[in-house]
């Protein structure tokens, strides 16, 4: 039982680490991309926003398969040797959650710019004070977007299974372990791990909700 506990802990930490890396990667290009999209109001940027909106529901197995063919030894990026490594999962998940981050950031910031900024100015705030208000409100929205992306990354199975390979002690994460334990017939352990996963994403969701309420209250 001791060994099992340690393994579950290791898998949970690995999941957080892999999906956390994915989220950081996604943030690093999603925020600048979103800001560009907001600032340039031409047809192309609207098209890109629509495209990202559509890509939110991209099936993970489709992305996983595409990445597999790209990262495979016989694929165009096979020389990197990334297939079946934790980094391959991180990259896949970062691509998966980019549309979520971009969509949330662009839509909420556009609204925010219209509301907070105008209101602050109307209420007699200086431009500096208005910027502070915008930034403060914006930070909350940003965190919400990041948590939503992270939640999706932690809970996805397709990418982790296909490009990670579910290798014991290396690329095995919570979702792939659940799938494996199911094939082994260990329903009890699968449920136990499911609860761990659910707890994780519930914590994140509650965090998102509470940030949302606080944001709205202000």
């Amino acid at each position, binding site marked *: 039982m001791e060994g099992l506990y340690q393994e579950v802990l290791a898998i949970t930490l690995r999941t957080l680490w892999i999906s956390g890396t994915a989220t950081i990667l996604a943030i690093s*290009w999603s925020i600048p*991309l979103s*800001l560009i999209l907001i600032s340039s109001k031409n047809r192309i940027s609207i098209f890109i926003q629509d495209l990202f909106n559509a890509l939110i529901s991209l099936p993970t197995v489709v992305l996983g398969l595409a990445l597999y063919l790209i990262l495979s030894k016989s694929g165009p990026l096979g020389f990197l040797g990334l297939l*079946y*490594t934790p980094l391959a999962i991180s*990259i896949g998940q970062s691509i998966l959650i980019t549309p979520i981050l971009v969509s949330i950031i662009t839509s909420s910031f556009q609204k925010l710019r219209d509301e907070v900024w105008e209101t602050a100015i109307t209420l007699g705030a200086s431009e500096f004070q208005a910027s502070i208000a915008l930034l403060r409100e914006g930070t909350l929205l940003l965190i919400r977007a990041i948590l939503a992306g992270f939640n999706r990354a932690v809970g996805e199975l397709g990418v982790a299974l296909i490009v990670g390979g579910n290798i014991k002690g290396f690329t095995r994460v919570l979702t792939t372990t659940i799938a*494996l334990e*199911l094939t082994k*017939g260990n*329903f009890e352990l699968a449920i136990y791990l499911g609860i761990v996963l659910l707890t994780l994403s519930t914590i994140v969701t509650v965090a998102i909700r509470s940030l949302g309420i606080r944001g709205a209250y202000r």
Partner: protein
Amino acid sequence: MSSKALIIMVLAIVLSVALLSLVYMLSTSGKQVVLRVSTTTSLYATGLLDRLADEFSKEHPNIVVQFIAVGSGEALRKAELGDADLVLVHAPSLARKYLEKGVIYGGRIFAYNYFVIVGPKNDPANIAGLDPIEAMKKIYEAGEKGYAKFVSRGDNSGTHVRELMLWRKAGLNPKGKPWYIETGSGMSQTLMVAHEYAAYTLSDIGTYLKFSSKLTELKVLVDKGDILVNIYSAYLVRESKNEKYAKKFIDFIVSDKGQEIISSYGGEEFGRPLFYPVKIASIEELKRMWNELAEE
């Protein structure tokens, strides 16, 4: 797009590339050789392979064995794409195709056991103790009359390939029949579906035993006949750069020590071993059976 925006974008890309390479360096540190083994699920899910790998790494601490558990069809395909150094499969007819293509070579039989036809306890098709082909005919008849259902893997796995062979030998094609259910998933899920539907299915004995405490509606009805022998073989992959290490692993699992682990695995838990080792006396017989199965 303004020049400011461009600068931000370039910075972002540089930042993420830097981050990526940092993580990459961290993840590939260490001087160990990684041996990728694509293997059939039925072998991996029993836990035998992890056991073998643990013992192997005691002798060769510099080699890390990583298993990718998929169906036999997918395992061989991965070898063709160059994503595996070693393949462990139990589908002679599939393996033969890849042997002929030159993707894999150096096959060694390292274990065997039996497929069994399991079905509902009351056995509506009356197949208990029959010859496997006769049993399939009876299931077909009962299915057509609406007394019985059959659950198929439907995933091009070794077990699925064997099931299709049984139907072909019986001269029947159940595909598309309302009583013929294809799950497209692993053995234990398929057994669970059979349990829920009180249906017949073909299973490897290892997975069935490992799982039998949850399958209260099912029992083994047919377990005799050469055509039910389930042969596990290991193959080297021609494209692999780790051939030397892959050979070491195969040598280990066919060695006395490896065979001892295979023959004792699961004995305590299930009252009978899940796999049989390949003894000198039986190797020629197994090779003959493998060839017969590969012809199909």
